[in-house]
């Protein structure tokens, strides 16, 4: 089982973010990734102004049009403008990704801290986490969506449940190594309460791997949500998401490939940015994590 290597020289690793701008300058990958993500965020924020049409407006007379001056990325099988739908789709992907990252980190970190610190908790909880991780991720997500029903909130819940064990495992790994360190022993010796130790001594060491992993969880969420929506068990069809735009595309792949190409390219760009950022950050923070995160 892969574990996160101990912090160098037993000191608290200064969070990479403390180096902020300096970190950006040192890693071209990170900067590129951040740049791409900023672009995507900008598009999502300014969607109402960037989109050329109403993404939900049906225009059957205009269906399956190739990209042109009126419809920059063409129209789909019921005449909706693909460009506008892709633009609005960015909102869904970013929202879902961000909320999944947030909730899985919050709950996962809590579980990991408790598990790493208290052995009794560890035995029970990690079994459950291992049990959850025993399911192939996509299949688990599909099954949960089947039970819960296809709504955006359920997508977020389902994906969070999928990623919580992974966050918990990484955090637990850090806690296990850090709690053996001298300064934690010292804190315990002077009678510091557990929550203080966890918050001020252990948690700072977890920040770097958590942040690096968050980037990858975000990326995976975008891909998973797209797959779920594509299959029809994710975001409902009345909210344009990159995945469900492609659902219709399959039948018309020959007649109107743009229905498939452009939302897919949007996914690739977004996920690429996230992966670049994550790679760059991880290499900066601790290249040894390459096998683990």
């Amino acid at each position, binding site marked *: 089982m892969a574990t996160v290597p101990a912090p160098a020289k037993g000191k608290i690793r200064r969070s990479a973010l403390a180096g902020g701008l300096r970190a950006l300058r040192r890693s071209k990958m990170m900067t590129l990734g951040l740049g791409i993500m900023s672009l995507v965020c900008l598009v999502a924020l300014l969607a109402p102004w960037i989109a050329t049409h109403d993404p939900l407006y049906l225009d059957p007379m205009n269906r399956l049009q190739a990209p042109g001056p009126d419809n920059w990325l063409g129209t789909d099988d019921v005449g909706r403008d693909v460009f506008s739908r892709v633009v609005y789709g960015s909102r869904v992907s970013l929202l879902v990704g961000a909320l999944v990252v947030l909730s899985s980190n919050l709950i996962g970190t809590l579980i990991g801290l408790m598990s790493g610190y208290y052995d009794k908790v560890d035995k029970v909880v990690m079994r459950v986490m291992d049990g959850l991780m*025993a*399911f*192939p991720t996509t*299949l688990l997500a599909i099954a949960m969506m089947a*039970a*819960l*029903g296809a709504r955006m909130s359920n997508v977020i819940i389902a994906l969070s449940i999928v990623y919580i064990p992974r966050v918990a495992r990484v955090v637990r790994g850090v806690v296990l190594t850090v709690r053996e360190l001298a300064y934690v022993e010292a804190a315990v010796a002077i009678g510091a309460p557990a929550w203080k130790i966890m918050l001020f001594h252990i948690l700072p060491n977890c920040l770097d791997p958590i942040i690096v992993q968050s980037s990858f969880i975000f990326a995976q969420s975008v*891909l998973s949500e797209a797959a779920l929506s594509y299959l029809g068990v994710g975001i409902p069809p009345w909210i344009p998401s990159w995945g469900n735009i492609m659902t219709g595309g399959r039948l018309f792949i020959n007649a109107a490939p743009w229905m498939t190409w452009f939302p897919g390219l949007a996914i690739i760009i977004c996920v690429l940015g996230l992966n670049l950022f994550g790679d760059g950050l991880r290499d900066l923070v601790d290249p040894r994590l390459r096998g683990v995160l």
Partner: protein
Amino acid sequence: MKGYILNRMLALVPTLLIVATIGFMLIHLTPGDPAAVMLGEEATEETVLQLREELGLNRPVLVQWVSWLGKVARGDLGQSFFLHKPVLEAITERLETTLLLTAYGLAIAVVLGVVMGIVAAVKHNTAVDGSLMVVALLGVSMPSFWLGLNLILLFALRWKLFPAAMYVPLADGLWSCLRSLTLPAVTLGFVSAAPIARMVRSSMLQVLNEDYIRTARAKGVHERAVIVFHAFRNALIPTVTMVGMTVGSLIGGAMVIEQVFALPGVGRLVLSSIGRRDYPVIQGILLYFAAIYVVVNLVVDILYVYLDPRVKYM
């Protein structure tokens, strides 16, 4: 060693227990009454109550749970509500396609990923390394179904090299069966090869810097042998773990790809069952493949000990 294997197999039991429990909980995740949801809006109260009796939903949860565990232990995954046959039977009917697709995809992923990773590591910091890693990065960032759709467009529809959506069963001949699975397997394989390639490359780079590689060269070992017999043999250890994880993503990926390529596999069964609200089938499939994945990981664990003599398996 045998003791270790036995040990690990015994350790499976609690894991499988928890897996079965999580699977059991699935049907109860449904907001509202699962029986009512399954029957749809037209259902009368009587039919709903009848279904609840059939599914045993009226008993206390604990009883349901124990009875479920007992059934699963005997291999009974329940009864398909829609198809009127045991879930297990429904699964095994379609298993061939899915397993073949997964295996074929795994083979492509491992071969492609390992080769890419080794070449990139050996040609570190050259254009070859750079371009291979760009390709790998794209592979990791790409939705598999998008790639599948594009491959259909290119190879099946525009260039007519491969069949688009015609699965040929194994019984009709190995070659035509594999040929019909090639495009979907390549899709799955490429997307799964990318993370393997990245990990193999970083593993190899680490290993190639080790002192024992220098020793091997100092002995006069051929560079090819240095890379494969000395370096990769060490990089194999984390790679095997990663390949184990890849099987998990391949199983899920296969379900998606089956939809793209209209293959008559378990994925198709899952998706149609969702539409029909056939919860027992969904539960059963979830459990079935989780069990497969658990066994795969057991094999990986055992392999790990076999590959790395430093690991104490006491």
